[in-house]
């Protein structure tokens, strides 16, 4: 410890012992910040205090000096706790840097190109609750009038979910055909997940294939949030159900597949439970609320609707999304 600090401490202490004002205490408190910045341990502060008292008021009963020695002994573990905290903070900082890098890698992995299809307007938004996204969205298109889209949600959040998700990505890449049928895609990904993922990790997935020429959507689901269909003609919402187990539960799971033909102005809304399971102070946000939001903007481009739903839900939840949020809207034009 530098003599300069010892000297300053002595001076500040002297002022205070002369006059017990708030001002003098405030000076002392500010000085303690400097001590922490310079990594001065609590036991050293007491030792410094003892030396200062000795210089200022030499003759005091022995019991006073003994009490300082005792206090020094008491402070050693506090000093260690402080050092440990500093080293843990440094480690935390390093972890944060690593997480940021991982998030960048994930972002690159997640990159998907919106397909361009005759008569179809597509809007997409995917926002993670934490650094890493546990939602997965991937488009497959061959510029031949077909496009597939997978919307998946790894049960769990953060790093483990992101790792699991990169595996799904490679599974999807291996299929890589915009013609592939939902029941086949789900079957293949199910076997991959079942084989390679921890038993405690499950994935839900909605897969749909769109044929632009016939405006026909074929879809299947592995325990995923049902998609929503809005019929412009009837001004009505309905759910697109398809039976199927979560991915990774059983290697022999089979998946249903249904079709629906879209007409002008119809909307198909595919999402993860981060959209439907939002909460506000009164509890879960009802599905009807989402219908209402979409209804209000149904005439707008798909991307505008998606953004509006997100903004409104964010507002209702006071900007505190609990879960990853992924929303895709197909609009037949």
């Amino acid at each position: 410890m530098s003599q300069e600090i010892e000297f300053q401490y002595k001076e500040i202490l002297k002022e205070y012992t002369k006059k017990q004002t708030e001002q003098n205490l405030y000076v002392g408190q500010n000085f303690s910040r400097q001590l922490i910045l310079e990594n001065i341990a609590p036991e050293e502060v007491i030792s410094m205090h003892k030396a200062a008292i000795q210089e200022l008021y030499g003759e005091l009963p022995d019991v006073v000096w003994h009490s300082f020695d005792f206090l020094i002994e008491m402070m050693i573990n506090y000093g260690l706790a402080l050092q440990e905290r500093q080293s843990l903070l440094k480690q935390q900082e390093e972890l944060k840097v690593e997480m940021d890098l991982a998030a960048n890698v994930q972002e690159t992995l997640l990159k998907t190109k919106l397909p361009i299809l005759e008569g179809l307007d597509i809007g997409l938004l995917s926002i993670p609750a934490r650094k890493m996204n546990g939602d997965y969205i991937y488009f497959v298109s061959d510029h031949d009038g077909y496009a597939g889209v997978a919307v998946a949600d790894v049960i769990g959040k953060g790093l483990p979910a992101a790792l699991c998700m990169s595996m799904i990505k490679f599974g999807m890449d291996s299929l890589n055909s915009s013609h592939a049928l939902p029941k086949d895609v789900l079957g293949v990904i199910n076997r991959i997940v079942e084989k390679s993922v921890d038993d405690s990790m499950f994935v839900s997935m909605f897969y749909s294939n769109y044929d632009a020429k016939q405006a026909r959507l074929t879809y299947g689901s592995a325990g995923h949030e049902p998609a929503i269909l809005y019929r412009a003609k009837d001004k009505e919402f309905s759910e697109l159900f398809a039976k199927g187990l979560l991915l990774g539960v059983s290697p022999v799971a089979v998946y249903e597949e249904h079709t629906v033909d879209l007409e002008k102005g119809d909307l198909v809304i595919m999402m993860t439970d981060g959209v439907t399971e939002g909460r506000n102070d009164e509890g879960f946000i009802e599905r009807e609320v989402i219908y209402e939001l979409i209804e209000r903007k149904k005439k707008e481009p798909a991307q505008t609707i998606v953004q509006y739903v997100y903004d409104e839900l964010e507002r209702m939840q006071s900007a505190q999304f609990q879960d990853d949020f992924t929303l895709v809207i197909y609009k037949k034009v």
Partner: protein
Amino acid sequence: MSDQSSVEILTEWDIVAARQLGRNVAKELGFGTVDQARITTAISELARNIYLYAGKGRIEIQQLTENGMKGILIIAADSGPGIPDIRKVMEDGFTTSGGLGAGLPGVKRLMDDFKIETILGEGTDIRATKWLR
């Protein structure tokens, strides 16, 4: 050049004897009150580890003179079970979170130099040095 003396650790009271020995040597060498407290805390921690995990062992205190510098060397030796995962016990937060005290990372921080050798089923030998400044 070194002078040595040691304390057998069998009961909790032997921890106190080891501290006393360490303090006497530290004082004699000219360590100040704060460093004396650090050295005895390190001895406490090492002796307690022997008492708790090995059952018995020995704390040895040596005076060191090297390149004109004076220092104190603590040797903690036991023939206990050894430490299966040194990296883990040297991690921050591993022992302290359980309220077990400073732990080995604490000893390392209290002293200038720290070496540990352990063989499963044969025992552990820890050497920690502090130099007089």
